[in-house]
């Protein structure tokens, strides 16, 4: 879940009142966000820096910062503007804004022309313009932070979508989105003073830039790099890595050109809508966005952004039946308004509401603003009704569902056997199903290459401890003994757990098998201690005893008396 840091006093200013930390925490709880931490810039620097670095510390602001944990699907709440707007609408302080496109009658649209080569690397682009934006330091930082947060989350580290923002006073349309050989792209990138060739720039970032180097692999080995140019061949951006310095926005910027290049068009539209909807608040005409015409590589024209509300058909009956409530249509409409959703009552329901009579269940159209891309289905609308109504206000009712309780036979047998083995004087251990290859095979003198002895192998383990799924319980039982050398002897241990075996018969190519391992560790091998137990366990399970000798002599060596008990618990 993304965590957004916002200046507390600016947030309270936007919310029109002050809260104590507890009150704000309670509000977050109701809405489904979370006040994760209360800190300040100085506090954060203090945690990161060593004590003697006092200069950075003294310059840092002591303003209180709220770290707020936002649900992973609420991209519209990744900045102060979005959080304040959502909470204001929730508390009824604000009507949900109507986001709309500027009236461009008689005015030409800015154009962005897509060249076919972009299909090789990053095929989609969408764009929009915010006119007459008033930035100040806080708004500007918030604008940059929002792009960062979107890049980290919805844009999947820029692999799906990358955002570029430009000062429209420093460039002019029509723009073109191209894909060129790296050696043909040369420009001064943001935060640099000299010109770089694109391929050299990638090497430069790999070597010198901690933040940008993780994005470099997205295009580095491609034959062509994506690039956006203006009418004068000024490079706007080299997505998804960096913008050009020439068109950089600043506090003085008034007209902002926003472009999103993407490998996923749906997400590009959501990202563009989110950025526009959040910062159109500061436009000369609030919540009005100037559209841009994108001419795709087939010559077809598309106008972005699409800010029209989506209509979802949500039967009132559906909401009430899923929540166990009997809400009136007007109540539902009011609750949904506080979640930014507008309800158009169906004619029957509207008529019923007008004459005050109880309504008949009908379908209502709910219109979803461009900020609420998380709403896919009527069930999402139903959840919003529940949140606005208050989860903790819902009436509780035990389901009347009648079913029979039943244990899984394998687990039932496991429980019985665990009890018996513990009664026989063994102590239960619980060890990991994942282990290293060496432990599972070589350390057990059981080469992996031996026929039938392969294991499920993990492709991306963070440490060697997690290379394979164990095919035997014995190594971890021995490791437990090794970790408990201080305990008085004898040690008598057992574990009843699953191992994982390759099995081509199964749809996934592997199956679990339940095993029992019993280990006796004393000063002598004490084979006689384990043999009667062996018998006892077979008798407990009432299965015929089979030969338990191991001709390899692997199991019974030195001071360890070990019994691996494989057969009996197969279900």
């Amino acid at each position, binding site marked *: 879940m993304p965590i957004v840091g916002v200046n507390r006093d600016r947030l309270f200013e936007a919310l029109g009142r002050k809260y104590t930390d507890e009150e704000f925490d309670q509000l977050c709880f109701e809405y489904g966000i979370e006040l994760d931490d209360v800190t300040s810039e100085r506090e954060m620097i203090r945690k990161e820096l060593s004590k003697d670095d006092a200069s950075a510390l003294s310059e840092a602001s002591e303003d209180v910062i709220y770290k707020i944990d936002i649900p992973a699907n609420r991209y519209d709440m990744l900045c102060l503007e979005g959080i304040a707007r959502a909470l204001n609408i929730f508390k009824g302080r604000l009507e949900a804004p109507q986001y709309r496109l500027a009236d461009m009658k008689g005015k030409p649209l800015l154009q962005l022309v897509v060249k076919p080569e972009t299909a090789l690397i990053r095929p989609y682009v969408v764009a929009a313009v915010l006119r007459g934006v008033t930035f100040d330091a806080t708004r500007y930082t918030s604008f940059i932070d929002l792009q960062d947060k979107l890049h980290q989350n919805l844009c999947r580290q820029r692999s799906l979508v990358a955002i570029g923002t430009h000062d429209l006073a420093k460039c002019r349309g029509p723009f073109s989105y191209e894909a060129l050989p790296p050696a043909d792209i040369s420009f001064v990138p943001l935060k640099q003073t000299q010109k770089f060739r694109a391929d050299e720039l990638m090497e430069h970032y790999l070597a010198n830039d901690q933040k940008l180097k993780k994005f470099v692999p997205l295009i580095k080995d491609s034959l062509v790099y994506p690039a956006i140019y203006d009418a004068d061949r000024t490079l706007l951006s080299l997505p998804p890595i960096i913008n050009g310095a020439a068109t950089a926005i600043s506090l003085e910027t008034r007209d902002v050109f926003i472009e999103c290049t993407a490998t996923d068009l749906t997400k590009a539209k959501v990202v563009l809508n989110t950025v526009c909807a959040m910062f159109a608040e500061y436009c000369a005409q609030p919540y009005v966005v100037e559209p841009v015409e994108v001419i795709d590589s087939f010559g077809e024209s598309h106008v972005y952004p699409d800010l029209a509300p989506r209509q979802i058909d949500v039967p009132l009956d559906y909401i009430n039946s899923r929540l166990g409530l009997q809400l009136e249509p007007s109540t539902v409409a009011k609750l949904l308004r506080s979640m930014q959703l507008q309800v158009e009552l169906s004619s029957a329901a509207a008529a019923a509401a007008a004459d005050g009579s109880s309504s008949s269940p009908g379908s209502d159209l709910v219109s979803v603003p461009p900020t609420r891309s998380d709403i*896919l289905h009527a069930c999402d609308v139903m959840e919003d009704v529940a949140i606005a109504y208050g989860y903790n206000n819902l009436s509780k009712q035990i*389901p009347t*569902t009648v079913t029979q309780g039943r244990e899984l036979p394998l687990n039932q047998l496991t429980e019985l056997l665990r009890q018996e083995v513990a009664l026989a004087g063994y102590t239960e251990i619980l060890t990991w199903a994942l282990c290293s290859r060496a432990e599972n095979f070589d350390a057990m003198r059981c080469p992996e290459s031996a026929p039938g002895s*392969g294991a499920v192998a993990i492709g991306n383990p963070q440490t060697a401890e997690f290379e394979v799924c164990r095919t035997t319980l014995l190594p971890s039982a021995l490791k437990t003994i090794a*970790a408990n050398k201080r305990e008085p002897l004898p040690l008598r241990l057992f574990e009843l757990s699953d191992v994982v075996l390759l099995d081509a018969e199964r749809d996934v190519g592997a199956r679990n098998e339940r095993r029992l391992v019993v280990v006796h560790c004393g000063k002598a091998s004490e084979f006689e201690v384990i043999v009667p137990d062996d018998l006892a366990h077979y008798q407990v399970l009432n299965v015929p005893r089979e030969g338990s000798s191991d001709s390899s002599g692997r199991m019974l060596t030195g001071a360890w008396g070990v019994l691996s008990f494989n057969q009996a618990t197969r279900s």
Partner: protein
Amino acid sequence: MAADIEQALLQQLADSADGSIPDSGDFATAVSQDHLKVVGVIKSLEAAEMITVEDISHSRFVLTSEAQAYLSAGSPEVKLFNAVPADGITLAQLKSQLPGDVSDVGFKQAMQQRWVALDKAAGEPRVVRKVDSVTDGAQAQLAAVAAGNELPKAEADALKKRKLIKLDTWKTYRVAKGAKFATQRKRQATELTSEMIASGSWRSKEFKPFNFNSMGLPPSGGHLHPLMKVRSQYRKIFVAMGFQEMPTNNYVESSFWNFDSLFQPQQHPARDAHDTFFLTSPAASDTFPEDYLARVKAVHEHGGHGSAGYGYCWKRSEAQKNLLRTHTTAVSSRMLYKLAQEGFKPAKYFSIDRVFRNEAVDRTHLAEFHQVEGLVCDRGLTLGHLIATLQEFFSRLGMKELRFKPAFNPYTEPSMEIFGYSSELGKWMEVGNSGMFRPEMLQPMGLPPDVNVIAWGLSLERPTMILYGIDNIRDLFGHKVSLSMVKSNPICRMGL
């Protein structure tokens, strides 16, 4: 022999005019016994209230190991003085003639005594004699201490400062007759035996009282692991509430069942390699219910069943990737699909089993842990049903007060985080997650449209850690766990 000493001591007490022995040290000397052994007897008799005891403190100076050397070989200051020739010597030469500690300590002392001086008149400073001859006072004083003689306070202080002598203290005892004094000790019996009862000798025996504060012998049986004890209780609760256990003994799962069937989009962060263990062997699954797979693909790409879908290009190859299941909900999904194929009937399922996350291991995270999951599948279930079911379930765990926070989860809508009030910790804490499965998950399976599923999940480790006061998950699960922890934990009194 302790018995002999005891006999002699009691006899002497009986014989003495005032019924006392003035000093146990003198007594030990008189009976030619080590004083420590006498003390043992005294303590034992005191515990039996046969004698009373008063402490007598003693102290005297003894030589330190450094002083022992001076006693025989002379003090360093004298050695140094003797090493200085009549016409003087440089400090460096002097040091080369004497061992380091002798020259350092000796020079310091000889200077203090004004036996030698440092002549800086001509170039390199030279050590010269200031007196013609010296007597070794320190050695003489040490000899006196060794002989047990008292020194004048000033001399003793000087030697103490030089760490040549130290104060040795010890105790002896003045012993007098106690309340139960007798010349012969009556042995107390510690155990009542069958012979005593048979012979009747118990009638005349004096029994030693039980010491209820002593440590008993540890029981010699085996022990169950605390996490497994808690698991057993959870299983009982589910079964008592009418839930059927799901077959979760399949750690290896395909991305299809683990993610796609749950309407979790293929670009979802949880499907990243840094969250999930993907497998190289067996790397991919091939066998799926193809018609169902087609419906899952459709609902991801463009929705249906009233949903807008995610609007992306769904890839079979992503769904085929094998992994270690990240949640037991993968099994729930298989079970619900099966239920739909066999013809819907109301069901309640539960499972408690291992799940795997590719996370760094720390105090609160393990790469594998146990997930507890419960679900109810029936027509017309509501969010109110879920809340009431959770109240019932958690009250059986001893958590009576719950509240619910809106949350997000890709496959449930509405989703609720469950917060419980812990009376042990005196605070609200998150105890689990819950919700109603999305129609986009249930409809492609073929369940009737009015069938709903309410479900919840939590980890087994966290409540166990709270129950047993363990604050590091690595002390609970894995081979490094201390066996004494396993042996010493109490029964699981959850909700009792």
